[in-house]
């Protein structure tokens, strides 16, 4: 242990700890009625009780969108990373191009691609009524695809970095020792990239869970994902909805923490991590 090392970590540690504690702490206090904009503070779970139905629906919807987007992101991302190992890096390069695209702009361009007057509808020559409701439809398809699009590139880059450093050498050794392609993928490649995939998927999942603008632009009015619900209540002219907005934010943060706990349990079971 050294005090100098402790000192070096402070410029990062202090702002992170302060902002997170202040932000989430204030959200928690607001949701419990302890930080009212007007009137005396009073401990109450009213904000959670009044809105339980909406909160539950929104939580289920947010979890479903995040799960679907992350599953597609993992499959596409890992496949992209595997193609890059062979030296044909064009797909990975194409994925890298999407990294600087803000989600808001991703949502805008997905809308122009997938809406019923979008580029694909024009391409397939389907007139109004013939094109499925991808944008604003029942299944949140455009929303899921936008997240999956950006997440798959992120996951591909993370996994490709791991593959480049360690896995290629092990894969060669296993091949020399006579392991079949299928056996190598199952016994060498997948176990080695597993921690990176789980970590990248968890970050993607929690990001999607807490993301606002994509669902706002490409989703439907009701039901709302948690962040959309929270920010609508938060920016409402009625000040009484502020605690409910904070409650939705707290629920989102708790779900994100639960997802991370689940991911850590998955990693503990993985042999490589130990």
């Amino acid at each position, binding site marked *: *242990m050294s005090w100098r090392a402790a000192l070096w970590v402070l410029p990062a540690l202090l*702002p992170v700890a302060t*902002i997170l504690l202040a*932000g989430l702490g204030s959200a928690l206090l607001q949701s419990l009625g302890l930080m009212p904009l007007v009137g005396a503070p009073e401990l109450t779970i009213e904000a959670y009780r009044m809105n339980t139905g909406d909160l539950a629906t929104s939580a289920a919807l947010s979890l479903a969108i995040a799960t679907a987007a992350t599953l597609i992101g993992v499959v596409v991302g890992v496949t992209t990373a595997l193609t890059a190992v062979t030296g044909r890096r064009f797909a990975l390069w194409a994925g890298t191009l999407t990294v600087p*695209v803000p989600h808001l702009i991703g949502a805008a361009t997905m809308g122009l691609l997938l809406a019923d007057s979008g*580029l694909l509808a024009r391409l397939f020559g389907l007139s109004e009524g013939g094109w499925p409701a991808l944008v604003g439809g029942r299944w949140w398809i455009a929303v899921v695809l936008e997240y999956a699009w950006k997440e798959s590139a992120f996951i591909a880059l993370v996994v490709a970095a791991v593959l480049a450093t360690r896995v290629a050498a092990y894969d060669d050794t296993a091949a020399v020792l006579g392991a079949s392609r299928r056996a190598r993928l199952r016994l060498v490649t997948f176990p080695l990239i597993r921690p990176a995939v789980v970590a990248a998927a968890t970050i993607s999942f929690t990001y999607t869970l807490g993301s606002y603008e994509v669902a706002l632009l490409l989703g439907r009015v009701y039901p709302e994902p948690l962040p959309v619900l929270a*920010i609508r209540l938060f920016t409402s002219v009625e000040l009484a909805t502020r605690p409910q907005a904070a409650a939705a934010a707290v629920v989102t*943060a708790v779900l994100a923490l639960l997802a991370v706990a689940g991911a850590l349990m998955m990693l503990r079971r993985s042999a490589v991590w130990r």
Partner: protein
Amino acid sequence: MIAALARTTIGRAVRAVLVLWFLLPLVPILLWAFANRWPFPDLLPQQWGLDGVRSGLDAGAPNAFVVSAALGLAVAAIATPAGALAARALASGRLPLPRVIEAVLFAPLILPAFAVALGLDVLVLRTGVPSPLAVVAVLSVAAIPYTTYLMRVAFGAYDKGFEEEARTLGASRATVLVRVHIPLLAPALSGAAFLAFLVGWTDYVVTLLIGGGRVVSVPILVASFAAGTGNSSVVAALSMAAVIPPLILLTVVARTGRST
């Protein structure tokens, strides 16, 4: 199996689908940015032109660009050195409670930024902190996990031998820092700064909630057009302009990575 992805027809088809998956969604903004008239169901615009670009410029795009660039640069200027120092401390292995410190430093990756911003909004109003400052603070915190991680990996691969050799040959501490340390870490530092810049450049929700309408960045401007209908060409022109500067930066960063 990996080799199979390279050689076979299936492998080729998989790669083609992947390239399409990543690039196809970018095509609409490329076309719409230069479309003056593009009625449905025409496959291509009826009339090409720069109406979208002009409307964007009239709507305050130059100002929004200055704001976004300032946000990105401020976040990079704060989060890169902070992350580098933290990474050095983590790499030294002499930190008390390293697991706890790592958990705190990486927590912004998983905790929803909107929830933090929503909670902070009231505090910012009550304490009278200027909102642009508060936005930069929250976004720097959001960027610190990325810079710390990248620098942590770089320090892991960093060979202390170069530093010791220079010292043995009589170089001062300052010379070692400028001539050995920073050049060796330059690729990682520029990569970290780029990611931190992106956090500031691409953010929407933190700027929206804490900026309180006073910080009009490019995403805020794009959102104000995207919410309505009939603005496709403005949205596309602004979007293109928002994506091109970081892409140029990305190429520069990739160059630094290769040349050193």
